[in-house]
């Protein structure tokens, strides 16, 4: 495999990447995933929420990052539905509501009923709506995604204002949603905040986890796989509901490929630089 052909034509690299991912997936191999501290912190927080607490799940990601955040939404929603909690679903990205419906359709909702235990309130278009919700949900989101008046829902009668929420988790792909919740919901009302983040922006949230502003951070598909294994350890269920665990072997293989590529790339670079120096 001539190194120089790699240099000029990237398509060979693309093919290698495809192979390195396809083989582990076809083998359906599964691997144990070590638990990152920020994942366990979120799991323990949700597991220890007092019964009948109100949770807000905010689907703030576009369909482009479904592979990173959708598995997280599935496992976290499944965990919340297995505990005696009440859930409101909102979205700061207009792609959110249909993705919420797809998650609700796929998970085991137990005996929870719509309107009493959970409700989908749909899209929040601007920060003004977000700032208003802690004071009065129905005034700023007058209709749920099924067309019912929000005020008529039993869950809203029980929790008319979002400031009664014990905690909000945002599945966020560009940090704007998380910063809005940190600035306005936690800034004014001290509501606990957690984030399911895409891998690129997750390092940027570590200062907020360190300062205690975030009670947990899930990092991309690996966070989902860790959460899924924690859920499985506790409730002996849900292994494979998100497709994250079965991606871990392919993830490992692709990561090793990237390391090899950088090492080989730099080796070739230094060799060519040294030979050109000797020729001068």
């Amino acid at each position, binding site marked *: 495999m001539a190194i120089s052909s790699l240099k000029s034509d990237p398509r060979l690299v693309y093919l290698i990447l495809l192979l390195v991912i396809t083989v582990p997936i076809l083998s359906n191999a599964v691997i144990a995933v070590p638990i990152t501290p920020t994942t366990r912190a979120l799991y323990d927080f949700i597991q220890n929420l007092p019964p009948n607490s109100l949770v807000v799940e905010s689907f703030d990601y576009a369909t482009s990052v479904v592979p990173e955040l959708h598995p997280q939404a599935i496992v976290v929603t499944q965990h919340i539905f297995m505990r005696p909690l009440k859930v409101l679903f909102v979205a700061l990205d207009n792609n959110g509501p249909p993705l919420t419906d797809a998650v609700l359709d796929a998970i085991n909702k137990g005996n929870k009923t719509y309107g009493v235990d959970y409700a989908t309130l749909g899209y929040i278009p601007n920060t003004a709506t977000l700032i208003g919700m802690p004071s009065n949900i129905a005034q700023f989101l007058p209709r749920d995604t099924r067309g019912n008046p929000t005020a008529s829902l039993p869950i809203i009668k029980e929790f008319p204002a979002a400031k009664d929420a014990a905690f909000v988790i945002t599945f966020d792909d560009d940090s704007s949603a998380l910063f809005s919740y940190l600035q306005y919901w936690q800034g004014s009302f001290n509501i606990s905040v957690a984030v399911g983040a895409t891998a*690129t*922006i997750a390092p*940027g949230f570590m200062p907020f986890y360190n300062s205690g502003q975030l009670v947990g951070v899930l990092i991309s598909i690996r966070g989902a796989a860790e959460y899924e294994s924690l859920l499985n350890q506790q409730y002996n269920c849900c292994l494979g509901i998100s497709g994250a665990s079965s991606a871990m072997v392919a993830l490992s293989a692709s990561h090793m490929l990237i390391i090899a590529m950088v090492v080989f790339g730099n080796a070739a670079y230094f060799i060519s630089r040294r030979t050109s120096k000797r020729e001068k």
Partner: protein
Amino acid sequence: MLELIPGRIAQAILLVIVLVAIYEVARFASKRKLKTRGIPGLERIDEWIKEAAKLNRSVFFTPGTGGITTPDTLAALALLGYVAKHCVEHNARLLVGNSDPQVQQITEDMVKSAYAKAGREKEYTPDMVRYISTRQFAYAAGIMGILRREKPAVNFFVGDFQAEALQIAETGRGVAIYQFGGTTNTDQLPFFMTTCDQTLIGEELYTAQGYLTSDPEAISRLIGPDAGKILAILLILAGALLITFGNSILIALMEL
């Protein structure tokens, strides 16, 4: 009657202190006509453009996907003004690719006026400044197409960038001799740093803007916030030292 909301008193007082400190430093800086610190690589731009002209290859510039109110885009346009002026001087062919319609209008005027100032309006051709798409990946694909076809000697991609930055950086690295990047978006900076010969990291982008425009008011606006940064450093040092000896008075004050 009027009362401060508990838990936010320290924030209010600190906000006033920081704003006053910044205002004073800004006034002092503009009075004394201070300059922002130099940015390594700005002077190399001139050499690169000269080399591009010599090799009869174009110079490519794209200010990213931001709009006219995005600070990164404004800093990028300041740099474009500088690059356009030097391209006209060394008569290197300048190409600009835009994503935002309003930025397209502004960059057209800037390149036209660069030629006009040198009295060579007729050399400006409309295809030098091209509007591609507001859509992230359509914009990236468009830029990559231009880079591959035009094979510019120098590739500038400065301003507001998202995930498409890697595609531009990698295609540019494979085509251009020199690559100059800059953005405040930390998520994309790693791909700038590892593929560019020179990168403006975060706020250095605004420093370059301050460095290029001789207007003292703009420079004071950049130097003012230094007061806030020094204040933050002093507070952290004081707080950390105090708590090391078990005294959390400053932390309690901050949460008043």
